């Protein structure tokens, strides 16, 4: 696949936090790329650096070294609003990602000036939500509805890249399956590129085209999902697979 198909890339990203004189290397020389219309899964245990990587990609944090590229143009160190022009993040706790005082109507279109009523209706239909929910606040909706609404909100802002941070962890099994199906459908129908972070290897293996395994801030293995899971090279990947089989 030519380089022009790569929409997002990170090269040699490093981040070290210092807490009470103790150093913690959260990202160690991490490199990745995301192609147009693909789903890249990032797996690893808690504290492996998955969410930290997403925070760096979305410019919520600045790396100590390394570069971030969007369609070949560097955007390292730019404000989050800049990254927000081409990517949106979907959080684990969807309810907390909405202002508890705001009605969905306002929350969904808060910054997307170009989101017309027709477009919003189309997006809500795509994510399988009723327009009546726009009159509700996050506290009055279920976890699954909130998660769908947060996906709708991301789509409203015209982002072509979605960063999904453990989006299914807080949901029950049925709702999880619905959200995963929705993500797959959006990727196929809307041509979105998605980074899907999860500690659930089974889920990632079902959904993602490529996979990246992280441990202690390092990318230990990366490649097409079938190849990585069919023939794991790193001990940690093997361990994760063994746990999955058990």
């Amino acid at each position, binding site marked *: 696949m030519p380089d022009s198909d790569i929409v997002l890339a990170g090269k040699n990203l490093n981040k070290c936090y210092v807490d009470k004189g103790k150093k913690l290397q959260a990202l160690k020389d991490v490199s990745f790329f995301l192609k147009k219309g693909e789903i890249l899964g990032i797996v690893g245990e808690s504290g492996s650096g998955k969410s930290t990587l997403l925070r760096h990609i*979305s410019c*919520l944090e600045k790396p100590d070294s390394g570069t971030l590229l969007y369609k070949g143009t560097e955007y390292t160190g730019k*404000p*989050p*609003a800049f*990254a*927000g*022009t081409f*990517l*949106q*993040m979907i*959080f684990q*706790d969807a309810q*907390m*990602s*909405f*202002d*508890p*005082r*705001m009605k969905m109507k306002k929350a969904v279109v*808060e*910054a*997307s000036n170009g989101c017309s009523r027709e477009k919003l209706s189309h997006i809500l239909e795509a994510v399988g939500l009723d327009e009546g929910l726009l009159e509700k*606040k996050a*506290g009055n909706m279920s976890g699954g509805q909130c998660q769908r609404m*947060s996906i709708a*909100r991301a789509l409203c*802002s015209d982002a072509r890249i979605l960063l999904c941070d453990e989006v299914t962890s807080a949901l029950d099994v049925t709702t999880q399956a619905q959200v995963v199906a929705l993500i797959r459908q959006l990727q196929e129908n809307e041509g979105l590129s998605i980074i899907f972070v999860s500690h659930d290897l089974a889920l990632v293996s079902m959904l993602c085209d490529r996979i990246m395994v992280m441990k202690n801030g390092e990318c230990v293995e990366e490649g097409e999902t079938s190849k990585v899971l069919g023939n794991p090279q790193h001990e940690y990947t093997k361990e994760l697979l063994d746990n999955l089989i058990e």
Partner: protein
Amino acid sequence: MAKQILKRVLGLVLILLVLSFMVFGIMYLAPGDPAEKRLTSQGVVVTKEILQAERERLGLLRPFIVRYADWLKNVLRGDFGISFKDDLPVAPKLIKGLKNTIWLALSSLFLALIISFPLGLLSAVKKGKLVDHIARLFSFIGNSLPNFLISVLLMYLFCIQIKVFPVIADGSVKGLMLPALSLAIPMAGRFTRQIRSELIDQLGEEYVVGMKLRRVKGRFILINNVLRNSLGHILTIIGLQIGTLMGGSVVIESIFRWPGIGKLVMDSITARDYPVIMGFVLIMGTIYVVINLIVDIIYRLLDPRSF
């Protein structure tokens, strides 16, 4: 909501009833004889007969429960009894003192807020920067210094060295400044820390992170979302402080001779003027629980999650 408020009001009545009983009981059990104290303060040579007659006159010989019921009945009619010290009705004294104390409390609260709110806000927004360190240092110092020490320092500086304020607060606006500032500085220290912490929590919420990514302007997020969502907590902190201020200004009122309810009660404790002391505790208790109730209601109205 109305049901919840009604429940709280009924609970409040019960609390006040228990409080009134405790106040009366403690005063009943307190050592010292108010009749004897009263007679000696008037220069009367106390004999057994005179003392007995005075006790009779003050109604001290009746059984506890009769005295309590009598006192409570009168309190409910707004009559707190007659002062043992000067035979004057207690209620007007308490009202006059209370007015001055409320005036002092609100002034110090206002001063504390105009200092702490911008400091707490700046400190949260510029977390880790120089302004944050300065604000935290102020908060630490303000919190560590007791208000009586601050009042002495302020008195030395503004009354003795610079001579811009009177040593004795005479009830005027000028006289109010130093007592209000003495109460405001430690309070501003506490408020700064609490406002900072609340805003930092809100700024780290996922909805704020998401809004930044959705290109909503930082100032808009701060005013329209973060501050509005923090208001409930900030209001609770302020509300609780009002109650503490009303009762806690006793020392400052005594130092500056501010004619508030605190000074009145200090004088009454020395004179064992039980009707005034009981009236004071009951009024303060009532103010405290009523403010708590009001804050609770406002908090529920402001925070949709509490419904």
